[in-house]
């Protein structure tokens, strides 16, 4: 159904054989393989972004209002904006500008003329359209996705939604419909319904907050009035692990979203930091000085039982499991001086030093297990540290590409569950805020603006 054009078949072929991030990542790495790293600039990233396989030309005419309820206008505008944002940011579409669309509203299948959409000026491969109406305080949405180049059987999706007529639900329905489209055309579930957890000091204390992936619905999670750091949501979204300063030590804390409160987690001696989940949610890695007086990597059951020390580096922290296998851990160690990125097997054996210059911290493993994002002051000079940017390394080849180029101190990259986006913290605008970007460097978005915000963590679904 989608294999009639070179563009869609190319995407489909990629996604059949490779996870999307891998497709993007390999395209990037291939593109830069011919260039010395120091010649990379932002422009190259735009080029390599489009070289990953032609994106699908997607047209999304504004949804049509289906009833005369006075609440329609606001909900319609929220819905249309959200759907466009989600598809535009999905990383697999080239959005056809609305100025190219045929005149008239396109709310029902009978309104769609495939030859008009499929030829210039829109020249779209896909068109997503539908209608929205409010009846008795209920919001009803019908949405379709049509393959413009398949006139015999154009319908790819036909969805219906019925929810309370609120702005939040209009946004939620748009996210769901977008995710259906992204999942169908992109091969893996979209991120439009995922959450980002982060640290914010906007109450005067560093607490854990959460927001939708696009920055909407920012809500406070922890209320400890102390210092909370390093939030990590469990793979099933039921528990949040983080580190917090208690009366006399840093401890791993556990918040249950099922219960809506903190739940117990063992207190260990010394300082306990930077928890990380396996992708099956059964184990937790964290850093602790419980045994040696220096920070080392430990692994314990998700309940905190049976912590086992894996390292002896004395300044080891920030572990993260390879989510594809859970058999490998990337972490940071200052065992040879300035901190560098290392990997090891999940039992502590086979330690590999992945970077060997500058100041490299904050590893984050891509969902397909093939790429590491990390923060790097690459050209570190005594007394004059350079800029700290986000880089992506292909583990197998150890080739490295630079993701951010726009100044400031960039840190704590974290992959989206579809592997196409990276969220990170940056002070490029003057204060520390959360930003997201496609893994090819495009579609940079600032997600937070209130207080200082840091250490983003993207939910895995």
């Amino acid at each position, binding site marked *: 159904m989608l294999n009639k054009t070179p563009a869609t078949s190319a995407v489909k072929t990629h996604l059949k054989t490779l996870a999307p991030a891998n497709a993007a990542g390999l395209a990037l790495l291939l593109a830069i393989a011919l260039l010395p790293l120091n010649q990379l600039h932002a422009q190259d990233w735009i080029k390599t972004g489009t070289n990953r396989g032609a994106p699908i030309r997607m047209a999304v005419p504004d949804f049509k209002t289906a009833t005369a309820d006075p609440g329609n206008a606001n909900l319609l505008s929220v819905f249309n904006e959200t759907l466009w944002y989600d598809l535009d940011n999905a990383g697999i579409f080239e959005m056809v500008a609305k100025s190219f669309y045929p005149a008239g509203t396109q709310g029902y299948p009978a309104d769609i003329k495939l030859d008009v959409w499929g030829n210039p000026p829109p020249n779209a491969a896909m068109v997503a359209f539908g209608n929205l109406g409010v009846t008795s305080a209920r919001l009803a949405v019908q949405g379709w996705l049509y393959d413009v180049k398949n006139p015999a059987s154009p319908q790819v999706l036909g969805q219906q939604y019925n929810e309370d007529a609120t702005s939040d639900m209009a946004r939620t329905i748009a996210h769901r419909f977008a995710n259906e489209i992204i999942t169908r055309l992109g091969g893996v579930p979209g991120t439009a319904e995922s959450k980002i957890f982060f640290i914010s000091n906007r109450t005067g204390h560093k607490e854990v907050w959460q927001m939708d992936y696009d920055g909407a619905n920012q809500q406070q999670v922890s209320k400890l009035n102390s210092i909370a*750091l390093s939030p990590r949501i469990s793979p099933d979204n039921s528990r949040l692990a983080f580190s917090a300063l208690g009366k006399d030590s*840093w401890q791993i804390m556990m918040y249950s979203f099922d219960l809506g409160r903190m739940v117990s987690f063992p207190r260990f001696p010394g*300082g306990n*930091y930077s928890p990380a989940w396996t992708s099956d949610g059964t184990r937790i890695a964290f*850093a602790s000085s419980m045994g040696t*007086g220096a*920070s080392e990597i430990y692994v314990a059951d998700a309940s905190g039982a049976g912590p086992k020390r894996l390292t002896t580096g004395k*300044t080891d922290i920030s572990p993260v499991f390879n989510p594809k296998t859970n058999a490998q851990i990337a972490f940071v160690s200052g065992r040879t001086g300035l901190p560098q990125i290392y990997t090891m097997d999940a039992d502590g054996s086979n330690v590999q030093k992945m970077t060997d210059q500058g100041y490299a911290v*904050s590893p984050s493993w891509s969902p397909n297990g093939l790429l590491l994002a990390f923060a790097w002051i690459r050209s570190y000079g005594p007394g004059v540290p350079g800029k700290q940017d986000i880089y992506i390394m292909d583990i197998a080849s150890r080739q490295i590409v630079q993701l951010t180029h726009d100044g400031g101190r960039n840190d704590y990259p974290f992959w989206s569950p579809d592997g196409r986006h990276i969220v990170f913290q940056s002070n490029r605008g003057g204060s520390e805020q959360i930003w997201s970007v496609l893994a090819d460097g495009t579609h940079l978005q600032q997600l937070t603006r209130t207080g200082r915000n840091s250490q983003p963590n993207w939910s895995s679904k």
Partner: protein
Amino acid sequence: MSFGGHKVNYLKRSWLLVLGMLVLMAMVSGCKKKPPPAPPPPPKAVTATLSANPTSIQPGQSSTLTWSTDGADEVSMDGNKVDANGSQSVSPSSTTTYHLHAKGAGGAQDASATVTVTAPPATPTPTPRPTPPPITDEQLFAQNVQDIYFDYDKADLRPEAQATLARNAEFLKAHPSWKVQIEGNCDERGSTEYNLALGERRADSARQALIRAGLSGDALKTISYGKEKPVCSDANEDCWQKNRHDHFVLTSH
């Protein structure tokens, strides 16, 4: 008396008038010539003077008070009986006014003189201070146990940090029951999580040195604050250096 009658009686009435006047005159002159009574002997007026020379002295120096009285039976200086005339050397420690009191049949008289005591220019008089409250253990600790400082991204002890730790250790040995928290801190550069690991190591460096110097490890607890509790928030090396430190806190005594 009647002056009746007319022309016939004019001469007679004039005579009577003259007579009457004479009588009156005789009466008046008779009073004037009476001798005055003898007055009592007048009491002698009381006088008193008092002077100081010099009138201004410095502490430890003396001034001479000189006084004289007249007509007094009783003379006292600030309540003490003194001679009617005399002099006395005084050496007040602060400015003092002396009062002379003279009393006699002719009344009483007071005189006073002030001797001003000035601060010597070279050595000012120390102002009396309230007694300081007794020093607390926390204050004693803070005065004697000094912070140590680190190089960027390092947890190694500099020579001066080792010297500071040696002094800290000597002081703490005298208080073996005290428990100490060693707080490792980092500057604002670098990553939040890595700085927690670095702060751990900085605190542990000090703890190990204190143990080597003979202190009990049980009394020495460490905590890292990473870059979460800076003492200074400017973005320059001066401030960063202040933040790259171990701070020591007395937690139990």
